[in-house]
C-alpha cells in the first residue's frame, strides 16, 4: 500500500541533482487505531512527510536522506515504523509518530523502489534494482539476492502476490512472475500491437490480496486480469477496458473486493471484482493520477496526481481531504505575489491560477480563469493562462488566456476585481479581442487615483485600459474600457512598465525604450541601446527610482547553453553584483521573485542583509521552487524540530552541506561589495506598503549565464551611466514644464 506522488512540496533547500526518473516520490497512507488518528506518509523531495488525513496538516517531516526519496513502506513487524528508501543508496527506518530516525541501512546503489512482504521473515525483501550494471549478489551491510533482473524503474510495475508467494513485475510487453518457493519465473508476453491497434505494453501491476490474480494495466487503457499463471500455456486472462489512455496505477482493496485504477483522465475507477461490468467513477480529481493507495483497513483510498496533489477518498467514494502542494505543470505566467494573501500566484491546474502560501507551504486556493472544462487528452489545444498581473493593492487581477498557434490564435484578456464581501476575486470584464495579436506584456499603474492597465501586444500597439466610473453604468458594476492606443514606428512592443509613482510609462520597442507621460499620453523621450532587443524592463524604486533598467541579451549565447545556472543580485546603483550564487540548481532557472517575509530578519551579516526583508524564490526547470536561507534561519528551524540525531551528517541540512561545498568559491565572491544601506530608508515607509512593493522593490535580479555575464555587465554599466544622465535631463525638463 504505497503511494507515489510527484515531489515539489515547497523545497527550501538546494540539493544534488535527482535521477532521471522524474521524481518518483512515494507517499504512504497508514491508519493507526490506538491513537485514533490517521496518517499519510509520503516522500517529498529528500524528506518524508507525515500528514494527518483528517486535518490535511503536515505532522512531521522526516529528514535525513541526501537524495530523492523513492519509496516508503510500512514495517510489517511494527506498525509504528516506516521504511524509506532513497536514490542516495540508503534505506532508513523511522518512528513516524515521533519523527525519529531509528536505523540506516546503506546499500551501494541508488534504490528506485521498495517492497515489503509480511511473510518474509521480518526483514523486507529488496528487489533486484534496475541499474545499468547488474546488481551483485552480495552487497555489504546486507545480504540480498537478485530476484528478478531487468525490471522497470517504475515502482508501480512490480507487486507482491498473495501471501508473498510470488512477485509479479512487468516490463515492456512482458509480465514476469517469480515464485519464491519454487524459485521459478514464468514469463508471459503480449504482442506489441494487434489488428485493432491495441497498444499492449504494460504500465502497472497489482496483485489480488486473497486470490491468485494479477491485474495489469496497459498503454491503451486496458486492464487484464491474469489467472492460472503458474502454467506456461494454459494461463488465461480477461480484459476490461474503460480508460482511453494508459492506465497509470492499479490497486486492490485489502479484501480484494474492488480494484482501483486511474490514469491521465483523472478519474478514479472502482471495479467490482465480483461483478466485472459494474464500476464506479470519481471524476475531476485534478491532474493525471500517478498512483493509488489504499489504507490497510480499506476505509480510505488515496490518489496522488501529477500536479502534486493527494486526494484522500473515503471508501464510499467521497472525497474527504485534499493535500495540495505547489501545482506542477507548465508555467507561463511570471511568479507574482498577491499582496492581499502574500501568496505566490502562478499557473496551477490547467486553466487555473494557484495561490500558494509561501509561509504555510501549501496552496491557499485555485482560481479558475478559463472557466472551461479541461479535457485530459494529449494533443488537444486548450485555453491556458499566459499572463497574470496584480495591481499594487491586490484589488485587481488581469489575466490573459490563449489557445492555438500563430495563425488561429484565440486569446482573451480578463479583469478580476476583489469582492470585499465575498473575500474573493470575481470576474469583472472579459475582453476577447483586446489586440490583433498576442499580448506580450501588461502592467497596472501604481498610482492611487486611477485604476489603469497597460497592455502591449505583438500587433505593434500598446493599449491603456481604464476602469469606468460607477455612475455611467448605473447600478451595474463598473467595467473596463480602452482609453488610449499608442504605437511607435510600427515596431512591436515587448515590455511595459510604470514608474513607482505612476506618472511615467516606459514601453520598450525592440531596441528602443519609449517613455510616455501617463497624464497626457505624450511621448516624452526615447532611449536607444543597440546591442539587442530588450528582454526585460523595470523602473527603479525609491532611491533608485531614477534608474530604468533594461536587459539586453545576446540571444545566441543564451539559448544553447546548458550549464548550471547562477544567480546574481545587483543594486541598481552599483555596477557589480551584490551577491552571486553559482550552481543553484541543475538546468535553467525559469522564473524568480522576491517575496516579503512575514517578519523581517535582523541578520547582521552584511552579505545577507538583502535577505532580511524579502526572500528570493526561484523556480527551476523541474518545477522545484527553491529559495535562499541564511544559516541562522536554518538553525532556528532545526531547533524548532525535535530530532534524534543518529549521525552527524543527518543533522546538517543539505543547504548547509552545499554552502560548505561552495565555501571556497564563495570566499572569492565575498570580496565583492555588499551594500545594505537601503534598509534604513525603507523602514520609514508604512509596513503594509513595504510588503506590497517588496517583490519589485529592492534589487534587480539578473539571471544570466556566466559567459554572457561580462558582455551584459559591461552594457549594463554603460547603459546605467548614460541612462542616468539622460534621465536627469528628462527630470529637469519635466520640472521645467
Amino acid at each position, binding site marked *: 500500500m504505497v503511494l507515489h506522488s510527484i515531489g515539489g512540496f515547497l523545497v527550501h533547500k538546494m540539493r544534488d541533482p535527482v535521477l532521471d526518473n522524474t521524481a518518483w516520490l512515494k507517499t504512504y497512507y497508514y491508519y493507526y487505531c490506538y491513537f485514533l488518528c490517521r496518517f499519510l506518509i509520503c516522500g517529498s523531495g529528500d524528506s518524508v512527510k507525515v500528514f494527518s488525513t483528517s486535518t490535511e496538516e503536515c505532522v512531521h517531516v522526516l529528514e535525513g536522506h541526501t537524495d530523492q526519496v523513492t519509496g516508503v513502506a510500512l514495517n510489517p513487524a511494527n506498525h509504528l515504523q516506516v521504511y524509506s528508501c532513497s536514490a542516495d543508496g540508503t534505506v532508513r527506518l523511522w518512528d513516524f509518530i515521533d519523527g525519529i530516525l531509528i536505523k540506516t541501512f546503506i546499500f551501494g546503489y541508488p534504490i528506485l523502489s521498495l517492497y515489503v512482504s509480511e511473510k518474509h521473515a521480518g526483514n523486507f525483501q529488496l528487489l533486484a534494482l534496475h541499474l545499468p550494471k547488474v546488481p551483485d549478489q552480495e552487497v555489504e551491510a546486507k545480504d540480498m539476492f537478485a530476484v528478478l533482473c531487468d525490471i522497470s524503474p517504475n515502482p508501480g510495475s512490480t507487486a507482491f502476490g498473495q501471501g508473498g508467494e510470488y512477485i509479479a513485475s512487468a516490463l515492456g510487453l512482458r509480465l514476469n512472475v517469480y515464485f519464491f518457493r519454487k524459485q521459478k519465473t514464468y514469463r508471459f508476453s503480449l504482442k506489441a500491437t494487434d489488428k485493432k491497434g491495441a497498444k499492449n505494453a504494460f504500465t502497472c501491476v497489482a496483485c489480488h490480496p486473497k486470490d491468485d490474480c494479477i491485474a495489469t494495466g496497459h498503454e491503451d487503457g486496458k486492464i487484464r486480469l491474469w*489467472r492460472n499463471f503458474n502454467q506456461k500455456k494454459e494461463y*488465461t486472462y480477461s480484459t476490461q477496458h474503460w480508460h482511453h489512455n494508459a492506465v497509470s496505477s492499479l490497486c486492490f482493496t485489502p479484501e480484494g473486493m474492488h480494484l482501483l485504477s486511474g490514469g491521465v483522465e483523472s478519474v478514479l475507477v472502482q471495479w467490482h471484482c465480483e461483478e466485472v461490468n459494474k464500476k464506479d467513477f470519481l471524476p475531476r480529481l485534478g491532474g493525471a493520477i500517478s498512483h493509488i493507495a489504499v489504507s490497510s483497513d480499506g476505509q480510505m483510498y488515496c490518489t496522488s496526481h501529477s500536479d502534486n496533489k493527494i486526494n484522500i477518498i473515503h471508501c464510499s467514494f467521497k472525497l474527504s481531504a485534499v493535500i495540495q502542494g505547489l501545482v506542477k505543470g507548465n508555467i507561463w505566467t511570471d511568479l507574482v505575489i498577491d499582496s492581499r494573501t502574500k501568496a505566490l500566484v502562478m499557473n496551477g491546474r490547467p486553466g487555473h491560477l494557484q495561490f500558494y502560501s509561501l509561509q504555510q507551504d501549501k496552496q491557499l486556493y485555485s482560481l479558475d480563469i478559463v472557466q472551461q472544462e479541461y479535457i485530459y487528452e494529449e494533443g488537444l489545444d486548450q485555453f491556458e493562462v499566459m499572463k497574470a498581473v496584480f495591481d499594487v493593492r491586490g484589488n485587481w487581477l488581469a489575466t490573459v488566456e490563449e489557445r492555438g498557434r500563430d495563425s488561429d490564435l484565440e486569446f482573451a484578456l480578463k479583469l478580476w476585481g476583489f469582492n470585499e464581501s465575498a473575500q474573493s476575486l470575481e470576474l469583472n470584464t472579459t475582453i476577447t479581442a483586446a489586440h490583433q495579436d498576442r499580448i506580450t506584456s501588461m502592467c497596472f499603474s501604481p498610482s492611487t487615483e486611477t485604476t489603469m492597465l497597460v497592455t502591449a501586444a505583438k500587433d505593434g500597439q500598446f493599449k491603456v485600459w481604464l476602469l469606468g466610473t460607477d455612475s455611467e453604468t448605473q447600478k451595474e458594476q463598473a467595467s473596463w474600457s480602452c482609453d488610449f492606443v499608442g504605437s511607435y514606428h510600427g515596431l512591436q512592443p515587448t515590455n511595459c512598465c510604470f514608474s513607482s509613482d505612476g506618472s511615467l510609462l516606459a514601453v520598450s520597442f525592440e531596441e528602443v525604450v519609449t517613455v510616455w507621460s501617463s497624464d497626457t499620453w505624450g511621448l516624452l523621450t526615447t532611449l536607444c541601446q543597440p546591442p539587442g532587443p530588450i528582454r526585460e524592463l523595470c523602473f527603479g524604486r525609491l532611491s533608485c527610482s531614477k534608474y530604468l533598467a533594461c536587459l539586453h541579451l545576446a540571444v545566441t549565447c543564451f539559448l544553447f547553453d546548458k550549464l548550471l545556472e547562477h544567480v546574481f543580485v545587483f543594486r541598481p546603483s552599483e555596477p557589480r553584483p551584490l551577491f552571486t550564487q553559482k550552481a543553484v540548481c541543475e538546468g535553467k532557472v525559469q522564473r524568480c521573485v522576491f517575496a516579503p517575509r512575514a517578519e523581517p530578519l535582523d541578520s547582521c551579516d552584511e552579505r545577507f542583509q538583502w535577505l532580511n526583508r524579502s526572500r528570493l524564490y526561484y523556480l527551476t526547470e523541474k518545477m522545484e521552487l527553491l529559495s535562499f536561507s541564511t544559516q541562522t534561519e536554518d538553525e532556528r528551524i532545526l531547533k524548532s524540530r525535535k530530532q534524534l540525531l543518529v549521525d552527524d551528517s543527518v543533522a546538517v541540512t543539505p543547504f548547509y552541506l552545499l554552502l560548505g561545498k561552495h565555501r571556497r568559491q564563495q570566499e572569492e565572491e565575498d570580496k565583492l561589495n555588499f551594500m545594505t544601506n537601503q534598509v534604513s530608508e525603507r523602514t520609514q515607509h508604512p509596513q503594509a506598503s513595504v510588503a506590497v512593493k517588496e517583490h519589485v522593490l529592492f534589487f534587480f535580479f539578473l539571471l544570466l549565464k556566466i559567459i554572457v555575464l561580462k558582455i551584459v555587465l559591461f552594457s549594463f554599466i554603460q547603459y546605467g551611466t548614460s541612462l542616468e544622465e539622460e534621465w536627469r535631463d528628462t527630470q529637469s525638463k519635466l520640472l521645467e514644464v
Partner: protein
Amino acid sequence: MGEFKVHRVRFFDYMPSAIRALAFQPQREKIAVARTSGSVEIFNCADRFFQEKIIPGREQAATEALAWVGDRLFSAGLNGVISEYDLENQKVKYTIDAFGGPMWTIASNQQGTHLAVGCEDGTVKLFEVCEGKIQFEKNLAKQKGRILSLSWHPSGSRIVAGMMDMIRVFNTETGQSVHRLLVERGIGASRSVECVVWGVVYLSDGTIISGDSSGKVKIWDDLTGTLIKSHQVTKWDVLALSVSQDETSVVAGTSEGTVVQFQFLSVVLGQEDKEWVQTRIFKNHTHDVRAVLELGTAVVSGGMDTQFVVRPLLDKIEERGPECVLRKIQFPHRSLVSCAKKAGLLLFQYPGHLELWRLGESDGHGASGSVLPVKRKPEKLLHLKIKGEEHICCSAVSPCGEWIAYSTVASFRLYRLHCDNNNVSITKVSKLPKVLSSANQICFSSDSSKLFAASTCSSVHVVSLSQTVHKFVCTLKPKSGETLLTTAVHLLAASEDGKWLASANSDREVQIYNLTKMKLHSTVPVYNSGVTAMAIHPTTNNLFMVHADQQVFEYSIEEKKYTDWSRQVQRNGLHYLWLARDTPVTNVTFNPKNPTHIILHDAYMFCIIDQTLPLPDSSSQFYNQLTLRSLPEKDRTKHSHAFKMCKTFKELMFVELMEDQSLVAVERPLVEIAAQLPAPVRQKKFAT
C-alpha cells in the same frame, strides 16, 4: 497471366440466414448447424471446418434446437415436430409430432438412450431412442410456463430445465421436480418483464450454470438448490451456453455479439478449491450470438449475423497449424451460381427461387484496371419461383443456355428456355423419367445433350436431352464392392469431349465414369480431405481437384494415375501461405486458349495456376503480383512462380471463364449482407 475482360457481377443478392442452433458430435468431430431457414449443415472440424453436407430447409421449419445421438441427428422446432435427418442422402428421414405445442429445445443424454424435448405447454417429454425411430416414453411433471432450455446430468438421472423466471431440476426416474431455482429479473424497466432462462448446463459435479435474459450467468449448486455466484455478463440477454468436454470451461453467447468464457480455476494456485471465473471475451459477431459450442480447442459461435465463427483457443492447441486461425464462414462451401458459358447466362440459386440473368456487354477497350463502358446492361431474364415448401438443394443451367434444372428434396424439375431477343419464355418439361425424383447435384454435358443428376447411394442418373424426347439412359453406380457406398454426391464434373464424368461424394471418394461405355472407369485414390472443387481439363482430360486442406491434385483419367505435375506438387509441397488460406476453393475452370492455365477461386481471391512455371518454395514471395509489376520485363520470369493470385475483388461467390474469354466474377460484399441484417442491440460506444 493474360488479360481478361471481367464481368463484375454484384446483382446476386445472396442472403444467408441466421444460425439458430449448433450441436457437436465428439466422436466424428462434426458440427451440425441449424439455420432459421430450416436448413441443417454439417461441418467437419477435422477437415478445416469444411461444409460437408447441406440439408435444405423448408418454409416454416423453424428449427430451434439440434441434438446428436451417436451418429443420428435430431432437431426440434416451433412447428412442434421432432425430425430425424438422413445424413447420407441429405434429407429429413421422418418427423414425429410431440403433441406439446412449439418446442424450444431438445437434448440427448450421454448414454444415447433418451431424448428430452422442452415444450411450450410446460412439459418436458422424454423419448426413447430406438433403432430407426424414437418412441415417446413419458412426460416429466408439467410446469407452468414454457421450457426453454434443457440439460442432462451426465449420469442421466437428472435433468435441468430453464423456464420463465425459474430453473427446475427433475428426477428422470420419477419424473418429479427436485428443485425450483428462482431467477431474479433484471433491474429497472425490465423488472416487469419475465426473465427467460435461455440456456442451462448441468455439470457432473452437480453444478448448474444458467444464462438468462437479465444478462447474468449464474452458478447454482443442485444439492442445496442455492445460488453460488452470479456474473453480470451483459446488459442484454445471455442466449446460449456450452460446456467443454472436460468441464473446465463454459462459454456464453450474448446479445451484444460477444462470447464470454468462464473457466474453472483454482483461486489460490496449487490448491484444490476451484471457482468459475470469467476470463476472456471474444467479440466476433455484430448481432445476437444464438448458439455457441466449446470444443476444448476452439469456441464455435453463430448467430443473427449469419456467420459461423471458429475462434481457436491457442492455449489448448499444442502446435501451430491451420487450426490456429480464426475462421469466419459466411458463404456455403459449394457454388450457388451456375453459368451458361456459351450463352452468357448466369443462374442464381436462392432458397425459394431461381434467377436467370444475361450478362451485359461492352465493346470498349481500356487500360488494365479501368472500368469499361457498358453497351448493354445485364438483364434479369427470369424469376422462377418454386412450388411447394421445400427449398432448392441444387440447380444448373446448360452450357447452351437452353435448359434449366433444379431439384428440391421432393421433386426434380427441368425447364426449357426459349429466348428470342426480348421475349423469354420457359416450358416445363413434363414426362421426365420416373427415376428422377430428386437430385443432390445436377450437371449438363458440355454439348447440352445429356443431363447428369446425382441421386441417392452415390448413383448418377444420365438423361439424354433433345428437342422432343427426354430419354433416361442409365444409372451410373460406383462399384458396389464390400462396402456399399451410400453418401450423396456433392460435386459432378463432365469432360468437354463428353466422354468422362467425375463425381465426388462427402465420403471423399471420387469416381470417374466412362460415358461412352456407361460404366465406372476408375476411382481416384481416397485422400483424407474432402473435395471442394474439381473439373476435367478440356484438352488433356486430366481431372483437377482441390481439397479442403488446400491441396491440389491432377489425375490423368486415361492413364489412371496422378500426373507428373501433381506428383511434383506433392513432392515440393505447397507454399505455406497457400496452405494457410482459410476459405476453400469453390470452383475450378480452365482457359481453352491457354491449356496450362488453371483458374480457381475462393472467397477472397482468384488464382491462376500456370503449370509451366516453377512452383514457389517457402522462401519465395507468394503474393508477388505487385512486385512483379514493378520489375522490368526481363527480371519478371526469374521471380514469377506458378501461383498468380488476384485479390482485386471483394468476397467472391463464383468465378468462371466464358467462351468469349471474358471472366465472370460474382461478388457478394459482406457489407451488403450486413446492411440487410436487422439492427443490432444498441450499445454505447466511447465518444458517441
